[in-house]
């Protein structure tokens, strides 16, 4: 169990970071989720395929609980800070790709939590639709439409940069 958790910890920490935007909170959430993983009688076996989505679901739910606890007050301030930081890159930053990545992070922070988490679960963490449905507790058939709407919303924020930057 410990080695499996160690392998999953960095990815799970990043998911918590992506949702909470605060390393200290993300660390707390990961810790709480790890305790659940070792003590919950209904947890899937650590070596099974179900364990990773199950663990990410615990992390996600814990992060959402924490956001609710904070009543999103701190989060909104942080989003504004992130946006300001993203707009503050200087002319010396000649690496277009890093600017673009920064813009992607800014744009992701501007999305609603629902939209952000589904994009990150698919594109950053690489989960299949069935796993995303299990993590978010939604029907599998809903994943594609919700993800598509989220990507279109992300595109709206990034269109100016997509024209300027060539990904190809």
């Amino acid at each position, binding site marked *: 169990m410990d080695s499996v958790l160690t392998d999953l*910890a960095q990815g799970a920490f990043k998911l918590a970071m992506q949702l909470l935007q605060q390393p200290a909170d993300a660390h707390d959430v*990961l810790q709480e989720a790890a305790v659940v993983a070792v003590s919950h009688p209904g947890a899937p076996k650590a070596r099974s395929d179900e364990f990773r989505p199950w663990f990410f679901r615990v992390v996600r739910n814990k992060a959402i609980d924490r956001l609710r606890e904070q009543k999103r007050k701190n989060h909104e301030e942080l989003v504004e800070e992130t946006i300001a930081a993203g707009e503050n890159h200087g002319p010396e930053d000649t690496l277009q790709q890093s600017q673009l990545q920064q813009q992607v992070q800014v744009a992701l922070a501007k999305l609603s939590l629902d939209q952000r988490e589904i994009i990150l679960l698919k594109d950053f963490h690489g989960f299949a*639709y069935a796993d995303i449905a299990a993590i978010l507790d939604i029907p599998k058939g809903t994943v594609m*439409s919700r993800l598509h709407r989220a*990507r279109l919303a992300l595109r709206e924020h990034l269109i100016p940069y*997509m024209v300027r930057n060539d990904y190809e």
Partner: protein
Amino acid sequence: MNKTDTCQHIEELLTGYLDGELTQQESQRVALHIEQCEECRETWRQLQQLQRAVQETRYPNLEQEKLETMMNDLTSKGLQGIAWFALSAGLAMIIAFAVYAFWVDTSMPWYHKLAMSLIWGGGIGLFVSVLRQRLIARKTDKYRNVKL
């Protein structure tokens, strides 16, 4: 079905196509359509770009030291759980044996036993109810994280 209807229908499938989550038949339909429709091809290209951009996004790792501390804490918590279980089971066995020995003891009249049992039972009941209230308050106290 005119072109707009087809595009509308295909558009949502573009995401599934991008993620390799469509059936073979659906994939073929989308592939054929984006070959013919410039607008949908552009949307498809943008979605591909977005996906790659998100994939390449970097977020900080949890510091190795913190990770190690967390895993050590987990091991300690596991051992604590086993220790608590052993302690509780041992105490429960002793109490059960004491209660049994108390009631089978013939040197004490039954009304003494009853009175003693009520006093002990009441005391334990009060202790458990106060403990329960404290635990609930600890869990739901919204000011518990406030550092003075």
